[in-house]
């Protein structure tokens, strides 16, 4: 059996038991990357040299009888908007094509404390703005299930790398669905934790009040192990929650008898394709069969999430992306006649069209005379959506909805209309608006045998319930055992 096809949990055990050396694990994963990467193009940067150096240090520790941590020696991939000291961090943008952070994101330090080895930085939509990874200025990442289709986004590279078995797990970031939607498209587990559970320090900001880092993994167990490593309070992040640390592997109990699963029928009506609907209905039956109680709930304001999201996220982004001005780091235009010209040319040449669109929209909703009508109103609607969920969780333990209304689309399908692309996020965005934890797990296959994800949502900081339900569903369904075929890609 190839090492790369093991789960994170299994490979960590083998390393610890010295059945394999860390170097062998690295050799194997990089050789897998050599084979598959030309087709999938999930990575922007590979960090081979640093990875082997770390492998050596960790192996020595292990050989000395020291504990190398729960992720000891396991190769992990990182989305290219998470700061890695001394390693290029581009956000898949021309703007940061030559930017090397001088500090590590807190999650990187935490992963390394847990013994993980960073093997590379993955492709994404430029500045995490997109739902297909097509807005990347670095690579075109393909969906491992059909190379003619997008992997989803914005964390498309991280999803594809795990799906194509080029990493045991990876980190992504989720502002409006950027972990869960590509997880769904690529048939892996994607977890977006509660806002505040994971430090954002070092995550290159898109929308500060919505962004959250989370793991991609092949199984729910692996996702729980990753969550254990990265969760926890960080003094460097004002919005990081100061809570007692938990062992999320304790949630891995194959039992949901008596759990109440909420089904927001009023919300899942529009835009859903028949194959996703079929998989979703089947999931409901599965849960019923496992002894869960299915309860219809109402999320009357959820349908306004998308509008709310595009106002809040773009407003914050327009401010967060002001710092890319060609002065302290990143791209600087070559010819300019004065300072203003430098700003304009740098930003005009350095940002892609989706990023510009969002910066302008965000600038618009914050500009003089429009603040109350858009930004303030969106924050008020946000309150209504939060209250909706709060009320729902008085009646149920978790909510189940599809992750995306359709399976992965073909490259260029939404080029004509950005708004259509935005609609792909309809089921993921409410979770960010309400700051809740959500997970997408493999939930079947639909049109053209493309994967379909099922999303569970739990109350804030109730990752335990979330993982338990997801784990039970996973253990009682076959979908996660399927591996991608990497078909297509000839045109």
């Amino acid at each position, binding site marked *: 059996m190839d090492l790369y096809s093991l789960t994170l949990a299994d490979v960590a055990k083998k390393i610890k038991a010295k059945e394999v050396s860390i170097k062998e694990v690295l050799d194997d994963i990089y050789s897998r990357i050599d084979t598959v990467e030309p087709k999938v193009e999930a990575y922007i940067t590979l960090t081979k040299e640093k990875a082997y150096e770390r492998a050596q240090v960790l192996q020595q520790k292990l050989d000395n009888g020291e504990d190398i941590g729960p992720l000891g020696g396991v190769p992990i991939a990182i989305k290219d908007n998470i*700061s890695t000291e001394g390693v290029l961090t581009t956000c898949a943008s021309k703007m940061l094509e030559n*930017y090397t952070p001088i500090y590590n994101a807190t999650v990187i330090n935490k992963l390394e404390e847990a013994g993980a080895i960073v093997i590379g930085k993955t492709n994404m939509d430029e500045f995490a703005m997109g739902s297909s990874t097509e807005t990347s200025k670095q690579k075109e990442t393909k969906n491992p299930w059909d190379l003619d289709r997008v992997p989803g986004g914005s964390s498309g590279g991280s999803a594809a790398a795990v799906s194509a078995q080029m990493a045991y797990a990876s980190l992504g970031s989720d502002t409006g669905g950027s972990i869960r939607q590509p997880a769904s498209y690529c048939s892996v587990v994607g977890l977006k934790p509660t806002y505040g559970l994971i430090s954002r320090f070092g995550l290159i900001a898109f*929308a500060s009040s919505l962004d959250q880092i989370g793991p991609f993994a092949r199984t729910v167990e692996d996702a729980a192990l990753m969550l254990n490593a990265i969760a926890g309070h960080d003094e460097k992040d004002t919005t990081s929650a100061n809570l007692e640390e938990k062992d999320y592997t304790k949630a891995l109990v194959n039992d949901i008898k008596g759990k109440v699963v909420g089904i927001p029928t009023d919300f899942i009506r529009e835009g859903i394709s028949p194959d996703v609907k079929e998989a979703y209905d089947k999931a409901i039956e599965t849960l019923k069969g496992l002894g869960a109680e299915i309860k219809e709930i109402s999320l009357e304001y959820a349908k306004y999430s998308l509008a709310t999201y595009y106002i809040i996220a773009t*407003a*914050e982004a327009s401010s967060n992306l002001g*710092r890319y001005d060609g002065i*302290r780091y990143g791209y600087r235009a070559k010819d300019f006649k004065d300072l203003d010209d430098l700003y304009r040319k740098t930003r005009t040449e350095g940002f892609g069209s989706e990023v510009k669109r969002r910066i302008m929209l965000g600038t618009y909703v*914050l500009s*003089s005379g429009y603040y109350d009508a858009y930004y303030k109103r969106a924050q008020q609607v946000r309150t209504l959506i939060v209250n909706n969920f709060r009320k729902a969780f008085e009646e149920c333990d978790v909510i189940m909805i599809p992750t995306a209304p359709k399976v992965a689309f073909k490259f260029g399908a939404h080029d004509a209309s950005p708004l259509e692309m935005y609609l792909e996020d309809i089921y993921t965005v409410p979770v960010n608006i309400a700051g809740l934890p959500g997970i997408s797990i493999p939930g079947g296959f639909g049109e053209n045998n493309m994967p379909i994800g099922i999303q569970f949502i739990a109350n804030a900081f109730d990752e335990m319930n979330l993982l338990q339900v997801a784990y039970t569903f996973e253990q009682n369904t076959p979908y996660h055992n399927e591996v991608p075929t990497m078909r297509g890609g000839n045109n």
Partner: protein
Amino acid sequence: MKDYEVIIGLEVHAELSTNTKMYCNCSTEFGADPNTHCCPICTGMPGVLPVLNKKVVEYATKAGLATNCEISRFSKQDRKNYFYPDLPKAYQTSQYDLPLCIGGHLDINVNGEQKRIGITRIHIEEDAGKLIHDAYTGDTLVDMNRCAVPLIEIVSEPDIRSADEAVAYMQTLKSILEYLDVCDCKMQEGSLRCDVNLSVRPRGQKEFGTRTETKNLNSFKAIHNSIEFEIKRQIEEVENGGKIYQETRRWDDAKGIGYAMRTKEDAHDYRYFPEPDLAPIVLSEEYIQNLKDNLPEMPHIKKERYMKDFDLPEYDADILTSSIKTAKFFEEANDICNNPKAVSNWIMGDFTRMLNEKEIEIDESKVTAQNLAELISLIDKGTISSKIAKQVFEDMFETGENAKDIVEKKGLVQMSDEGAIKEIVQKVVDANPQSIADYKAGKDRAIGFLVGQIMKETKGKANPQIVNKLLLEIINK
């Protein structure tokens, strides 16, 4: 020419004297090499997040309490978005609609009259970096040491009517901030500076004229002169049928002229919105009360006490308490020598003159409070004369040596030995028969001449009272 009324409001920026910056652990120290007090956070690198310095809230609250403001129980920070090379994040974290302090006032004294100036608000915000013009390349260099040094902005009501009032307001504010020890108020280093909003209108007119804003004035002289300049300019403009434009202006202190900046203010749209990376500031009654209870004695209270406890004239008390450094120096010296009037006279007289000449502050002088107290004790004990003391003080000021050592080293101890003085008096009397004759003929001035001769003989060391007594005894014998 019509009679014009001048309307002035001040926006004062005071850098808080915290150890570290507003949102990171870098030092706030002034004068370091460029870009050596910097980290990813204060230079706005991608991915960084701010965490507010606790002391910033404490210091700003104190400033609010000392200026009679209402302290907000709930306030928040907002982003003010604009592009400028000294602003690494392209937004300044400030406070927009919910500042920390609102609605206070200050009482100022101008030409013996008290006037109350309203304070609209005090909010916390971060400072920007420093731009240095590179004469060699013609480029501008950015030093980010000052980026995110914490500031409070104190916004006055448009209650000020003249340059003198503006200066008095600024002096009063400076004195209070120094008393609170929340700002070092070194105007020449820019840690206390102000923007002047000014308009004029014919007296009797209800609506305000168009105002201009002259930015970044960092000395009392610059505030005074720029206001005088701008008043004159605006009145002349109006008189000549011209128009006042709402504009941002600069003051060239060396040339003594103000000029409009080229950047257009009306192009700005700061797009304020609540800073999502920072939490609201919620202050409890207990927190506020505790700060209130522990505020130091404020200048006007101290002044009253000096008049009462030390029996000092109002004028003295006013000057001594106008700066906490002077007041501290006074109290420390007086504690040792217990002669408030003498300490006061010294501080207000020669000492202040010499400090002004050197352009230093009292705490930067080589003369310590203990030194001055010892000098005064030497006079009080009759060891030296007041005249010699002046000479000793000059040495103390130059060298920092203590009075006793100077007196000893230079042999300046006052002669009080009557026998020895009598000998010299006799000698001078014998040598000046004409003066004796003049004196006896009723010319009192002759005594002065004789005393002068005696002092000359003793190199000024003879105790003047004894000299006078013995001289009269001998002449009248």
